[in-house]
């Protein structure tokens, strides 16, 4: 960790001229006192400088620090190794997704939202599509098979997201084996995603009205095999950390945030459940038919990093249970709403290059039905209209409540889309969790929140 800002509060501003000619620590006077920006050199030449003056050391961690979980900038005020103040600087990954969506059709919006929280793309898509469907008033018309596939894909995604949380969290605290195994196991799920959606990330698979296409042949078997393999491997991976005395030494009692703090700061997800409150939107406000699945809401009562780690471990097991139940529930049927004014007209099939339009559909629109061609053209270029109004849909993403507020003015484009991303809200807890602790424990606290900056900054 490099220190790049040291601030001295000088009793007599400008009195200390040491450092003024130091190539590594140029100093300058401000109304606050003399300030040195340090980006290298020998520490002794700096600390020796202001004799008898009160010093404030402000350390910038990030936005390019390997332990800050992405482009998060932590601004820490230190007293030795103790953090006296912690603030977050965000916005380094702001890409204007919400603004861009106002200039594309409703279906194209899926392609944007999937890129927000890039570790849980299917949750972004699901929240957006459920909100659009609510505006369209077709929530009850979504075919059962589509909802089941959505649940299955989301739960697989939850496992892959939690695996990354464990992998990067472990890595940031020095447990490199956890990282290797976590990413290895996540690869299994990404293979399933690639088979079903064609893409490993940024899937754009869940669409308003259903899902983009049905499961390919052999997908169900592959998913069953993957779940079996994951069960075995997850045990091996998590055994590296559960009851590991070094890991527990770094996590138990660290990043403490109790229920009152969580409520005030609007914290949801594993952080909230680590206080013992079994709040899970899949149970309390079910969507996509979650009321039909048998699973438990995992809680711990330790309010610390270790508790959140255990919750993620056990939630992966619950998610695998849901995936198996979803596989059992899969019945043949449509995967897109019957309304031809909403359903995407084309169907994809696997061509020689691995993807492509179905030859049957091309034949129909190109040589059999002029009306079908017009319909296809209108729906793809113009899109469907959504009646005016607004809707808010919240789902339980791996990180907590992922809310989507969609406003339609009656046109073919969203008037406004806003995402209440759980990472964004949960990051506010960094100060409460980390102040008064050690610098090294800030890393553990941030890792236990598991923020994804793509979702925070949007």
């Amino acid at each position, binding site marked *: 960790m490099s220190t790049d800002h040291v601030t001295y509060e000088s009793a007599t501003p400008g009195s200390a001229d040491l450092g003024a000619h130091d190539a590594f620590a140029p100093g300058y006077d401000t109304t606050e006192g003399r300030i040195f920006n340090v980006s290298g050199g020998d520490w002794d030449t700096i600390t020796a400088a202001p004799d008898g003056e009160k010093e404030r050391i402000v350390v910038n961690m990030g936005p390019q620090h390997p332990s800050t979980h992405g482009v998060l900038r932590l601004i820490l005020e230190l007293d030795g190794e103790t953090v006296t103040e912690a603030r977050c600087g965000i*916005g380094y990954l702001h890409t204007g997704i919400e603004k861009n969506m106002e200039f594309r059709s409703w279906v194209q919006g899926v392609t944007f939202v999937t890129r927000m929280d890039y570790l849980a793309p299917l949750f972004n898509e699901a929240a957006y599509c459920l909100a659009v469907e609510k505006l369209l008033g077709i929530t009850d018309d979504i075919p059962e098979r589509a909802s089941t596939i959505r649940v299955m894909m989301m739960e697989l995604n939850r496992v892959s997201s939690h695996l990354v949380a464990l992998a990067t969290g472990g890595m940031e605290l020095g447990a490199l084996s956890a990282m290797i195994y976590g990413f290895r196991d996540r690869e299994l799920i990404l293979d399933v995603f690639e088979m079903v959606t064609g893409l490993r990330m940024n899937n754009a698979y869940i669409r308003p009205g259903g899902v983009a296409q049905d499961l390919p042949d052999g997908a169900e078997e592959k998913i069953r095999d993957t779940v079996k393999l994951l069960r075995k491997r997850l045990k091996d991976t998590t055994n590296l950390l559960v009851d590991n005395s070094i890991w527990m030494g770094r996590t138990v009692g660290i990043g403490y945030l109790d229920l009152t703090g969580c409520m005030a700061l609007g914290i949801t997800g594993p952080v909230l459940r680590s206080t013992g409150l079994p709040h899970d939107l899949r149970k309390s406000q079910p969507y996509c038919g979650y009321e039909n699945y048998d699973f438990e809401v995992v809680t711990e009562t330790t309010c610390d990093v270790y508790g959140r780690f255990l919750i993620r471990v056990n939630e992966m097991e619950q998610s695998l249970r849901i995936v198996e139940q979803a596989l059992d529930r899969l019945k043949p049927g449509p995967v897109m709403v019957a309304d031809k004014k909403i359903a995407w007209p084309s169907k994809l099939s696997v061509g020689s290059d691995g993807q492509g339009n179905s030859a049957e559909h091309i034949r129909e629109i190109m040589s059999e039905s002029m009306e079908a061609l017009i319909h296809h053209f209108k729906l793809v270029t113009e899109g469907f209209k959504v009646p*005016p109004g607004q809707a808010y849909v919240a789902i339980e993403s791996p990180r907590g409540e992922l809310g989507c507020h969609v406003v339609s003015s009656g046109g073919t484009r969203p008037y406004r889309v806003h995402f209440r991303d759980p990472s964004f809200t949960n990051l506010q807890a960094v100060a409460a969790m980390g102040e008064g602790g050690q610098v090294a424990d800030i890393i553990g606290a941030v890792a236990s929140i598991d923020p994804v900056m793509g979702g925070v900054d949007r």
Partner: protein
Amino acid sequence: MTDMTASLPVIPPGVTNLELLDARDGAFGVKGSGDTSGFGGLLDPRVMPGASQAPFGGWFDEVAEEIELSLADQGLPFASATEKVVVDRGEITFFVRREHLVAFARVLRDEPGLRFEMCSGVSGVHYPSDAGRELHAVYHFLSITHNRRIRVEVTTSDTDPHIPSIVAVYPTCDWHERETWDFFGIVFDGHPALTRIAMPDDWPGHPQRKDYPLGGIPVEYKGATIPPPDQRRSYN
């Protein structure tokens, strides 16, 4: 307004009282003479769901009644605290007058019969055609105790974009209010440190407002030029 609504293309089911938001004329951006397609004569009014009258149905009435009683305890009549109530698509929205927002939020949080412990934050919507109420701040509240969710909407004008901050009541709104200030220019009075959060500190303008251009450059590909998204032919 009535003759406009008569020719409405899309009316939300179950909504009778409509509020005109905007009317778009023509199509594909074609205006005035030169249009031989006939589409220039199109009139497409844009209306949002209008105010609902009690009873609102289900637990909505319980919540509304509880709010009314609690506000009355503080000597604040429901009618002066709220502008209107809209029930649409199974969601209830309270349009709260900005001067009473903090009292309203406090009631939501503290009343045992309401207990909205969790605020899902605030975001903005910019309606340039809604004269005098161009900027809307939209809050969502969740009661874990009663398993209910409501929406609160506060309106303010472009010329006086001030709304009281509810950070003192719901600290979670800290970053959300900063984000709304950043993107919409709504000033949340009483916020502890209302600074930009996503855009650089010296950024001019508020990007999510409708009068702020999306930006972008034309892209040339194999001799053809594709304009940036906000300058393409629009069907909206």
